Each structure stands twice: as C-alpha cells, then as structure tokens.
C-alpha cells in the first residue's frame, strides 16, 4: 500500500478533482491520497467523484480556508 500527498491549492473546481483522478490512475486498490485544496467546492465535489467511481473518502478536515481530504482507492478498472 502506498500513500501520496497531492497539492491542489489555488486550483478551482473541477481542477482538484481532475488532478486527483489523474493521480489515482497511477495507484492501486487500497492506496491512499491526501489532497490539500483551497477551493471549498472540493468538500462536495471530491466525495461525489469518489462515490461515483468507487473510492472512499476516509478523512476530511477543514481549517483556515484549507481543505484536506484523504481518499482510499477502490477497485481500479
């Protein structure tokens, strides 16, 4: 299992989702990614994208205009 940190600060939706999607393509089932963002829209978009594509958000935090989510990769295509 590997873990990756992804910096998506200053990107506006849906760019953080696109970056996450591209990152997940390089990972395997069970791996995790923590993505750090400044656009509050990610708190809605990343969980929605994860649900649709079979991944799980295992943690999400919000502090001082910084939004951080950790996603565990589900079944890969």
């Amino acid at each position: 299992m590997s873990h990756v940190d992804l910096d998506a600060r200053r990107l506006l939706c849906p760019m953080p989702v696109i970056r996450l999607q591209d990152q997940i393509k390089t990972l395997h089932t069970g791996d995790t990614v923590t993505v750090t963002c400044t656009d509050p829209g990610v708190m809605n978009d990343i969980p929605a994208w994860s649900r649709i594509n079979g991944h799980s958000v295992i943690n999400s935090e919000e502090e001082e205009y910084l939004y951080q989510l950790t996603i565990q990769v589900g079944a890969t295509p």
Partner: protein
Amino acid sequence: MSKQYKAVSLVSGGLDSMLASQVIMDQGIHVEGINFFTGFCVEGHTHAIRKQDDKKPKRNNALWVAEQLGMKLHIIDVIEEYKDVLINPKYGYGANMNPCLDCKIFMVKKAHEWIKENDFDFIITGEVIGQRPMSQRKQTMPIIAHQSGADELLLRPLSAKNLPETLPEREGWVDREQLFDFSGRSRKPQIALANELGIDDYAQPAGGCCFLTDASYSNKLVDLWQNRNDKNYEMDDIMMLKVGRHIRPNARFKLIIAREEGECRFMEGYRKEFDHLHCTSHTGPMALIDGKPNSEDLQLAARILARFGKGRSEEQVDVELGLKNGVKRQYSIKPLGSDDIPKEWYL
C-alpha cells in the same frame, strides 16, 4: 451471451444530457459520462470565489448528474487544446465569444478518441435539433458528426428520429423506435420526459454551459486580447476575468478590484503574479494591476482604488503598492470622485 455495448455520454450537467444518458441506459447499454473542462465552464468557480454565493449549493452539476444516474464520470482537462478552438474557430463565434459549433466538434472528436482508447462502442449527446441557434441546427448536426470523425458512432437520443440512422440503431444495439423526435426551442418535451423518468431535480443553465456566452465576460476577454496584442492566454488570465471589477484607464494597464471578502482572499493568492494595491489608512478592497503601468498610471491606480474604500471622501488616504518582487511603495493621494471615473473605463 450477447455483447454488453458501451456508450460514453457527453455530460454538461444540464437536463438534456441527463435525459439522453438515462434513455440509453434504460435500453441496457452501459453508459459512462465524460465532461470536458475548457477553463470557461460555469461550474463551481465563481461560486467558490464569491462569499455572497455561500448559500447556493457548491455542487458540480456534471458530477451530480452522474451520481443521480449511477454512472461513472470522467472529467478531462482540455484547457491547452481548447485554446486553438477559441482563438481560431473555423465556424466563427455566436452572439458573444462562444465558438459553439467548433466547440461541439472538438468535444465529440475528443470523445471519439476516448472511446477508441477505452474500447467503448459509441457516443451520445443531449443535443436537440433547433435548441440552440448556432450549434444545434438541423444543418449543423451532420457537420458535427462528420468533422469530429465520429460519423455514424454519434447518436443523439432526443432527436434521433429526425436524423439519419446511426450505427448503433442500424445494428440494433439500441432500439430507434424508443428514441425521440424532439426539435425546436421549447423545453416542454424534455420536461415531460423528465417527469416520466422520475427526474425532478436538475440544473437549468441560463444561456449556455460556459462563460463565453456571457456578454460581460466576452468583453473582458476581447479587451485582454486587444491590449496584449496576443490572443494566447493562461488559466490565471481567464480565471481573473471572472473575478472583481475590471477598470481600464488606458492601454497600458487595468485594475482588478475585489468586490467582497471572498474575492479579496482569492486575489491575495496572486500577489506574486501581479503588482497589487491596498489602502493602509482606511479599510477597503485590494486591487491587482494587470499590464505595464508607468509611474503616473500607478498614482492614478491608487486614486481609483481609494474611491472604493472607506476613505473615499477624505482629502488624503494612504495606499501601498506591492510589487511582484516584494518591493513596497507608499502613496498619499486624494481618492478620485465618482464622476472622475468615466463609464468607458469599466469593462
């Protein structure tokens, strides 16, 4: 066992592509959505920046549609490739800077490449004949199919019966009889179909799916191109056109003045990319300076900015200029009066 056919659906987040996807899924086809991010999409952006929009749901409609229909959604970044579509549209622009026909051709072409790479069988869109003046006329439908290279692999379920048979229909992958013959600008048939399918919540985009159909946004884009003498653009440029009040006193520079706190916070992130101003003696917004102002221009910029702060009626206020390289300069100036800013300066 018969083959499971697979279609990719161009999902904008609006009702038409939602319906098109659902009716094809109902025929037993495996459908996944694809959404192209050109940089100009209305989704999210300004909602994310402007605090006053806090009450509106910050959902991305394409993702929301995909979730409602239970299909996967692939969001593809086409920002770089889209520049050529916008800068050199073969079929020209619509009412504003929207190159809709070229845009549709481009998107279907990208979807066609995608189905080849991902082993899908055909493409569907929510296009309806006559729905939009430029890209969805009866004459333009075959142009999109042909110029994109998708030809017979492009199926428009909502208008299929008004169009020549496509491969999925001819081969019986889908039943043409169960498709539709919608045409014209009326939204009634779509709303009736939505009711029939039990879809009662959907986005109703005003105008089009992107900022390029917006007159004020288009003006700012044209201004940017004219004053830079170059049509090339970066993501930051097109993002900035969505933010703040834009005031151009001359060809050398323009000011982008934050309209509220959310924009201020967003623009503060650009202090290393733009020279910027803020008032130090009174509260007020910040401004970014785009272009190459001379020293007189900078004085003028400070006076304009002061006009939008709490010290607007004072004889003198202090404004700090921060340069991209971190150097700071102070100005003590008199704010411009409201009549001193000609209407033409506002973009």
